[in-house]
């Protein structure tokens, strides 16, 4: 026994010596503000109040996940202190909270803050202060810009990536399609449309009509009728949940049966498909990258078993049907992975370096085959999705995992 232990000690000592010689940084502990021998402070900003408070489930899940990590001994013996503030989805408040986190609480980094304009408001500040703004919870494509903003990184597939995947699918399955696009007239809709056109490339002329709508409109019936009149046989509905449901209903009402694609944002069974009606929703297409917490097909899945155990033990009040819970779990897991990779070098620079060198990392709640990959020139962690078709009362995944790379 002692002999074995001696061997281990000798071996590790030799190993330590080697590494120390090759790179001194590895052997000694390095810290920036917010990290110490016992603690790592992580900041976060969420809309716990205000118009987007439905997303707050993401923040609560992340907090619960860090509690789990702490209960299991932390990261390299360091406990995570997760400081999460409310910004009510108002950009000036986000700035105030971000400054409070960085200057007053002294966090090592800000992780997983929600919203495009809220995060946009602090991006410049974070980059000036050189504090990592990691895994922003926003689908805008602007988070993948390492040259101009080397301290900001997104996480989820961007709207552009998702739209490119639909473009790929259409070009393969229906090369002579006439595409009608209904899109929300804001950053979400416009990012998507751009992705779609990028994806179609020279074939962008396949789009016969693109109809914008404003969220202030009570109904979008008129737009759907116009798209049918334009003789489109593919209907891409880049809509938020309420409007996606209206689109499904109206198309059925006027007897229009195109290939119907709805965005991942609106792929909720409970929030969109069920209110629109299961019968008329058969065959609708979408794409996803996370496992659905309510889908029984994952009951035997190892990752989801871990996820359900986590919910039972650390977050019993969470609603597993809420996509934000699955999202928060996977995002927090990515954060923990990065911190583990940092080892004892918990400087802000090293955190960014490690975040930009994730290789084939697969969080428990992402679809099998979807992996997180980053590089110094690629700040878009998730770029793959899988197509799915609505059948019966649930989504059925089909086909391969598709990456959004621009290859025709």
């Amino acid at each position: 026994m002692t002999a074995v232990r001696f061997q281990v000690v000798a071996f590790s000592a030799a190993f330590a010596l080697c590494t120390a010689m090759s790179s001194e940084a590895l052997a000694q502990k390095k810290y920036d503000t917010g990290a110490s021998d016992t603690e790592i402070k992580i900041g976060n900003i969420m809309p716990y109040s205000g118009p987007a408070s439905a997303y707050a489930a993401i923040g609560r899940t992340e907090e619960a996940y860090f509690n789990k990590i702490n209960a299991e001994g932390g990261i390299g013996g360091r406990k995570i202190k997760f400081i999460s503030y409310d910004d009510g989805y108002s950009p000036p408040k986000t700035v105030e909270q971000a400054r409070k986190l960085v200057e007053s609480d002294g966090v090592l980094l800000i992780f997983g803050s929600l919203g495009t304009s809220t995060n946009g408001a602090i991006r410049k500040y974070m980059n000036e202060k050189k504090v990592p703004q990691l895994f922003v919870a926003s689908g805008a494509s602007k988070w993948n810009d390492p040259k101009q903003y080397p301290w900001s990184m997104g996480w989820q597939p961007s709207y552009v990536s998702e739209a490119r995947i639909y473009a790929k699918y259409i070009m393969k399955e229906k090369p002579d399609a006439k595409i009608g696009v209904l899109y929300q007239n804001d950053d979400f809709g416009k990012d998507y449309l751009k992705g779609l056109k990028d994806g179609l490339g020279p074939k962008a002329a396949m789009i016969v009509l693109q109809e914008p709508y404003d969220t202030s409109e009570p109904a979008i019936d008129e737009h759907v009728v116009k798209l049918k009149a334009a003789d489109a046989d593919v209907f891409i509905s880049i809509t938020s949940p309420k409007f996606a449901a209206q689109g499904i209903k109206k198309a059925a009402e006027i007897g229009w049966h195109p290939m119907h694609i709805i965005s991942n944002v609106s792929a909720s069974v409970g929030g969109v498909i069920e209110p629109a009606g299961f019968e008329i929703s058969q065959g609708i297409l979408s794409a996803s990258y996370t496992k659905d917490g309510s889908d029984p097909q994952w009951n035997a899945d190892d990752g989801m078993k871990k996820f359900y155990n986590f919910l039972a033990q650390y977050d019993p009040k969470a609603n597993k049907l809420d996509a934000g819970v699955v999202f928060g779990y996977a995002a927090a897991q990515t954060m923990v992975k990065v911190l583990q990779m940092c080892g004892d070098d918990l400087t802000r620079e090293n955190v960014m370096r490690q975040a930009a060198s994730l290789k084939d990392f697969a969080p428990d709640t992402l679809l099998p085959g979807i992996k997180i990959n980053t590089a110094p020139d690629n700040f878009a962690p998730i770029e793959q999705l899988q197509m799915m078709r609505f059948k019966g009362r649930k989504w059925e995944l089909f086909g391969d995992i598709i990456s959004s790379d621009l290859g025709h």
Partner: protein
Amino acid sequence: MSAVEEVAEGHQAVEAVPKRAMTLGTGTSLVVLAALLIAPVFVKNFIIFQMTMLLIYGLAVLALNILTGGSGQFSLGQSAFYAVGAYTTAVLMEHFNVNYALTLPVAGVVCFGFGFLFGQPALRLSGVYLALATFALATAMPQLLKLNFLEHWTGGVQGLVVTKPDAPFGLSMSQDMWLYYFTLVVTLAIYIFSVNLLRSRSGRAFMAIRDNEIAASSMGVNVALYKTLAFGVSAAITGIAGSLGAIAVQFVAPDSYTITLAISLFLGMVVGGVGWLPGSFVGAAFIIFVPNMAESISKGLSGAVFGVLLFLVIYLVPHGARQIAIFGQQLAGKLRKN
């Protein structure tokens, strides 16, 4: 007769505040000013930033106070003027490279025109109807900023990032501290202007309209002109506050200027005391710090906690900070007699 007693007798929506009661005494003013001048030296940049925001929101509340406390007109549309000011500054700074200090007067003039014009149709409305009309302005503004043909300038939903100015003349102070002193100077200038405005002929005309429109017009006050003028002045000050806000926050986006902001400003005015100008800054402190306090008490129920705190304030001191100030004055008076 104290101001409180006056209110008990009156049945107007906006109470009549005598113009002397609208300001602080000279001694108190100097103490507050000295505190505002010295404080930044001792605190962190983040606190300086919060103090800057306090002055900025204070200015916006002050503008509303001139409109409501001075001329007796309601507005729930102040966020729209604030947004116009902020965007004027952001667009001038980022697209035309105009110096930040020069954008303030431009924003003021633009907003004055905007407010003056909006005051024209608003003339036919009073009380709650005017509040509703301005409410419409506030809800429309974020969407107007997203319009396609403006997008080239406004940046659409993505908003615009504004560069924070460095301290000039090689002064060795942080950007935050410089911006604080800059804001303080602007705030002081506007505060003194407002006090003088309300003491002037125009100010008396405002108050005459507030107290009794018919009597005012029979005395020869041009009601239409002074009502729109009040709107214009209020909008101009709000616009300047918006400009300063854009520089301090370094970002403008339609999401920043929703109806929530207009309601916060209205709330700040009520908490500070309608018609009491120094109360504007107390009100601003309330809308900045109390939500943070509420959040530290309960994250999930921060809205409810905020509601309870607000209810307590309105219930215990219905006339806001002014009531506390008057109480303090009376107490000091009694102590002196003893």
